[in-house]
């Protein structure tokens, strides 16, 4: 994983546009958040291997970045993306790692399904 290079990441997003792709999207503050601090409201969301097609993908803002995908009838976006890589399987892995090294958000795009 490397720090987001806007130009490179934008190029990758363009390459997946108008293709059937599988999405992994998650955001979380961790299962232990309200165990360690009762004032924390524990929330998160997770989808994996939902197939969709986007017509426009965009990197926005200064780091940590926002990534938005415009679909024919809707949207996908993630906020807080710090790192990215095109992995050995040609999957675009994007993630937001907080200051303590914990994953806060992940957005991944692949032409083949992610494992289970």
């Amino acid at each position, binding site marked *: 994983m490397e720090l987001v290079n806007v130009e490179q990441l934008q190029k990758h997003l363009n390459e997946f546009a108008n293709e059937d792709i599988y999405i992994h999207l998650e955001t979380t503050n961790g299962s232990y958040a309200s165990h360690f601090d009762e004032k924390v409201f524990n929330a998160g969301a997770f989808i994996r291997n939902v197939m969709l097609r986007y017509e426009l993908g965009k990197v926005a803002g200064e780091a940590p970045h926002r990534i938005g995908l415009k679909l024919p009838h809707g949207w996908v976006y993630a906020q807080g993306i710090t*790192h990215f890589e095109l992995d050995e399987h040609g*999957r675009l*892995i994007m993630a937001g790692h907080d200051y303590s090294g*914990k*994953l806060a958000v992940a957005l991944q795009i692949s032409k083949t399904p992610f494992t*289970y």
Partner: protein
Amino acid sequence: MTLPMERHVLVVFPHPDDEAFGVSGTIATYIKQGVPVTYACLTLGEMGRNLGNPPFATRETLPHVRKEELLASVKAMGVTDLRMMGLRDKTIEFEDDEKMIEMMENLIKDTNPSLIITFYPNYAVHPDHDATARAVIRAVRRMSVENRPTIYALAFANNSIEFLGEPDVVHNIEGSKEEKMGSLRAHISQTSWMLEEMEKRLADGEPEDENWLHFERFYTYDFNKDFE
């Protein structure tokens, strides 16, 4: 401390590293006493959040990292029967309840344990911990009373002592401290922050308050005070 002998000990947890903190000393002690131990680990901790900054893994590579760590931990404790059950982290409570009970029944049938170690339902904080414990308790509840293995349950929710009282089983595992440290070190992607903090405290001359390196505590599950 010598632990009472068991025919077979079955340990059931959802995540690699769940065994390290609360049970690895007990497991190592049983192994040294010649008691066979089976560790069934339901997931590979795929959803772990410690990925580092700069990152050492991605969401997709983390399971590979954690599988290696699990194998190293098992080796450190001396366990030779590890079962990786192939579920996905954070999804256990959403699996079919009956399927989960069957999984536990099959493990029990296969290993014929006199003792099962798992979490205490509703007092184990993480939804996967509670779901795993529910499945184990339900499977054992279906057995005839005289055939039921003993269950040692781990509780660490903030209200555990308030509602359950003090744990009735306390193992002094000082004799297996090395194995326990070995298990904790094996799961370095998950434990590094904790080990660093501990070493700093010791270096600062604080007394050995690392209680959990000396003692492991369990509740003997009592079906007369069943959770459901």
